[in-house]
């Protein structure tokens, strides 16, 4: 049966489709207790997603256009639902949905270009730990007895450490911006830390010229001022480079601590213990670790044993930059051929970006019904 496959080629039909329909209804019921069921247009305006994610989303979503604006075949439900919720002006809201999403794949890839995604989004909860646990609980209910391995993480931990670094706001902003690009993030840590002297030395001539007031003359000699980025912007950045060169390197202990936070891995309770140890020498981490502690308590209160959750400090860093707190995922045990069966997390910042600065706390999760069906039917 075509619908038995995790990634049907072109059609779903017959008994397989009926089973899939029943499975979707069960998943939506588990995710959506008390939530509004929402359907979204398959074609979404491209500009919102392009502005959020830039060229990365262009490589991952189908972009199309007629004589009007560019459109995108919905690659995800979360962003349009955030937009929908922010338009209501309400503080609270809970939404559940299920429908196809479309993702571009590389040539030769056998990953699905169209698949169902069911999900829930919870907005405006007063108690973030409880809301995080609630999102996870609903997703686990949807997964039922399926053999999955659960991974959790918390991007709020490294973000809290970055905020507490004893350094310039410019450096903190640059590090926050690249948290979701691990290789680049590591390079930035080096440029602000161990290699700061080399970087400053490499720019010594330029910095000296700026300090001597010769920046304008250098710039004029280099070429005509073409393009939308003006001479004042070049001068501004030169001034920032001068300040950066004069700023002491990051404390090696803080850099090591931050890398250690990102490297923590193990059962969630043990990981929390390790984070508390690191927090003794690392400013900013203790309050974030306390939030993780509260979340694990809330998760336990909903009948999930925290020891069953594997914690990974870097989990969620290679997805689209979107989650900024609790993150979780479920992978099919012993089935590397299947995509992740479920995932989710907290995305407070995204609501502020889409809400024009007015954000609400938000957490959600998704399940892939076809992959789940393939896993559970394969297991029986």
């Amino acid at each position, binding site marked *: 049966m075509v619908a038995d496959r995790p990634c049907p080629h072109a059609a779903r039909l017959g008994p397989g489709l009926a089973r899939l329909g029943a499975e979707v209804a069960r998943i939506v019921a588990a995710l959506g207790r008390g939530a509004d069921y929402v359907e979204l247009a398959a074609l979404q305006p491209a500009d919102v997603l392009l502005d959020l994610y830039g060229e990365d989303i262009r490589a991952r979503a189908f972009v199309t256009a007629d004589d009007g604006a560019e459109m995108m075949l919905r690659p995800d439900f979360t962003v349009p639902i955030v937009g929908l919720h922010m338009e209501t002006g309400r503080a609270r809201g809970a939404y559940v949905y299920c429908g196809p999403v479309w993702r571009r794949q590389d040539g030769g890839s056998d990953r699905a270009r169209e698949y169902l995604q069911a999900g829930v989004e919870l907005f405006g909860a007063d108690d973030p730990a409880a809301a995080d646990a609630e999102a996870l609980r609903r997703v686990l209910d949807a997964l039922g007895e399926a053999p999955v391995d659960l991974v959790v993480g918390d991007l709020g931990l490294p973000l809290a450490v970055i905020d507490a670094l004893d350094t310039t706001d410019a450096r903190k902003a640059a590090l926050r911006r690249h948290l979701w*690009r691990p290789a680049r993030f590591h390079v930035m840590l080096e440029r602000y830390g161990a290699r700061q002297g080399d970087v400053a030395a490499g720019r010594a001539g330029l910095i000296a010229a700026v300090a001597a007031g010769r920046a304008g003359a250098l710039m004029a000699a280099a070429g005509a001022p073409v393009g939308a980025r003006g001479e004042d912007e070049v001068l501004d950045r030169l001034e920032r480079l001068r300040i950066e060169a004069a700023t002491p390197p990051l404390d090696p202990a803080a850099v090591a601590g931050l890398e250690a936070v990102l490297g923590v891995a193990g059962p969630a309770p043990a990981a929390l213990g390790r984070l508390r140890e690191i927090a003794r020498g690392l400013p900013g981490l203790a309050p974030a670790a306390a939030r993780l502690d509260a979340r694990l308590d809330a998760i336990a209160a909903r009948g999930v044993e925290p020891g069953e959750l594997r914690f990974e400090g870097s989990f969620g860093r290679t997805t689209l930059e979107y989650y900024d707190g609790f993150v979780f995922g479920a992978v099919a045990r012993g089935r590397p051929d299947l995509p992740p069966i479920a995932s989710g997390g907290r995305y407070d910042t995204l609501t502020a970006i889409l809400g024009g600065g007015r954000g609400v706390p938000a957490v959600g999760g998704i399940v892939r019904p076809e992959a789940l069906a393939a896993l559970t039917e394969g297991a029986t």
Partner: protein
Amino acid sequence: MRLKLGIPSKGRLQDETIAWFGARGVTIARSGAGREYAGRVEGAPELSLVLLAAAEIPGELAAGRLDLGVTGQDLVREEIPSWAERLEELAEMGFGFADLVVAAPAFWIDVRDMSDLDAVAAAFRARHGRRLRVATKYRRLAREFFRRHGVADYALVDSAGATEASVKNLAAEAIVDITSTGETLRDNHLRVLDDGVILRSQATLYSSRVARDTPERRALRAALSARLGLAAPASA
């Protein structure tokens, strides 16, 4: 049967291709007047000739409609996803040199490398409320290169005509384009970033891995490789 060889249908690339084969004892003669897209091969009974726009040759090789083809590495890497699975480079031909580069206004004395460009993109977005635009005809290669260097907050824009002029024309803030001498870049007040060379491209003889593999075809390939003095073909 014969192996179908696609070569550029006009211009200097065609002249140099003909000279390259000629130096290896294979004469390519254009039949009819200059604008007619036909020709024949002498001195290599295993070949038949097809004249195509250089830009069409990568797609024809990837589809298996050509067995062999001469085109630029830049076009192959841009247009054919996972190109190495579908095409094999038989010989770099020593002409048609072009570098694909990232270039920005020369007066940006604060920008030397891709790391600087990334920092500028962040500041530009904060100031202008939109992403820094990079004009190019090479979207795939540009996007992969920018991702590898961890550049964020940019947007690629298609350049219809002369990419080098897009900064001056306020259609973009930087460009990704091919250059051979750098003169056009300088004329447009642009400068290549220190680590901004994406690809050093040249005309290359490719064979298709997609074309159906038969003993006869393998024999023809081996005969051609011997004739052209190439390494024996990899097991196709």
